[in-house]
């Protein structure tokens, strides 16, 4: 079947199989930041934005993305690098395996929630599992990042 999807601002038309998941389609398109973790919809590693909203690309059919805009980490490199520095400062990235999905969800949260509380941050990011950090360093990094954003553009 033929689909047309905008990926990181660029339009692609492709003939795909109906059961192809978005994750595999995006990797075929060279978006290697999009990774498969659990494949049971639990870990959040495969997070991408569909029309600005975070979704799990391991569970979402590429066919469903027809006519929509998908953003991956490759499309948000500057912001990702900015937040990544806060993550590194706090030791919030150890093996780094969870980072692409985590960063994508943090960037979605920043767009969706205005001045989130700590509880709201934790709730928004609860679908991103991390085996290494125990989450506290990630939480500090997110809070510092939000405070920094407030400072530069209140």
């Amino acid at each position, binding site marked *: 079947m033929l689909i047309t999807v905008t990926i990181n601002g660029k339009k692609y038309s492709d003939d795909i*199989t*109906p*059961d192809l*998941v978005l994750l595999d389609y995006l990797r075929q398109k060279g978006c290697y930041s999009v990774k498969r973790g659990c494949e049971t*919809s*639990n870990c959040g590693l495969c997070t991408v934005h569909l029309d600005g909203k975070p979704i799990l690309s391991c*569970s979402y059919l590429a*066919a*469903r993305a027809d006519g929509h805009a998908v953003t991956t980490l490759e499309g948000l490199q500057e912001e990702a690098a900015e937040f990544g520095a806060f993550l590194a400062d706090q030791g919030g990235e150890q093996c780094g395996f969870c980072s692409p999905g985590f960063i994508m969800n943090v960037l979605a949260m920043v767009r969706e929630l205005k001045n989130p509380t700590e509880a709201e941050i934790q709730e928004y990011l609860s*679908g991103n599992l991390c085996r290494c950090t125990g989450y506290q360093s990630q939480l500090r990094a997110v809070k510092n990042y939000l405070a920094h954003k407030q400072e530069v553009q209140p």
Partner: protein
Amino acid sequence: MFTAQQYVKAATLEEAYTLNQKRNNVVIGGGCWMKMNHRRYQTLIDLSGLGLDIIEETPEEFVLGAMVTLRQMETDEALKNTFGNGFYEMTRHIVGVQFRNCATLGGSLYSRFGFSDILTFLLALDCEVELAHAGRLPLAEYAQMPYDRDILAKVHILKNGRRAAYESFRQTATDIPVLTCAASVLNDTLRVVVGARPMRAICMEFPFPETEEAMEEICRKVQETVSFGSNLRGSGEYRRRLAGVLCRRAICSLKEDAVC
């Protein structure tokens, strides 16, 4: 992951229903549950072109399309204004925001999972499901029906002033619940729904308790009457104890909350 040969974005509900009568065809909601099976389907039937992804409010009811996501229900202001925190509470523990942006109301109710937060809370409200072929019927009836090949198109929720509260208990955040409990009140009648027993949710009604003793008596009755089973998340006996606690919390929040 399942495989499929064809993908049809249905142009009408009738077309979707006709396609769904073939044994190897299947309706796909968010696909989050389906992706965990390894079946070989002929045709995936997509309802996303039928305008079923909206929450409508009329003076009498809310009408939720089957393709409404869990996240839409979680964040909808009109649902919150009418039913308080219930929709938020029933959804917020389910996996994560990304998951809830994918999983749908239709997929959740069709599945009628024993552990379902969604089924538990919606049974506490006055809901009817609208099926493509069988038409409208009470959610409580649908919840007991065997799986068939009809399509769930919409859910109607009556705005009759019923107040409702929702509680669930999980071993860890975002896990499937060990037990769920909803309570609601209308015209001095209390409805209690207990789910994740781990069997499908069950409803009971009592006169609304005015005193502490009457509330304790209701919680005891729930514990005694409902059957609870064991699985890897908890024993039947553990669930029985939890039921008393969650039931009490849900009734208490109805007493405290005159608004929702």
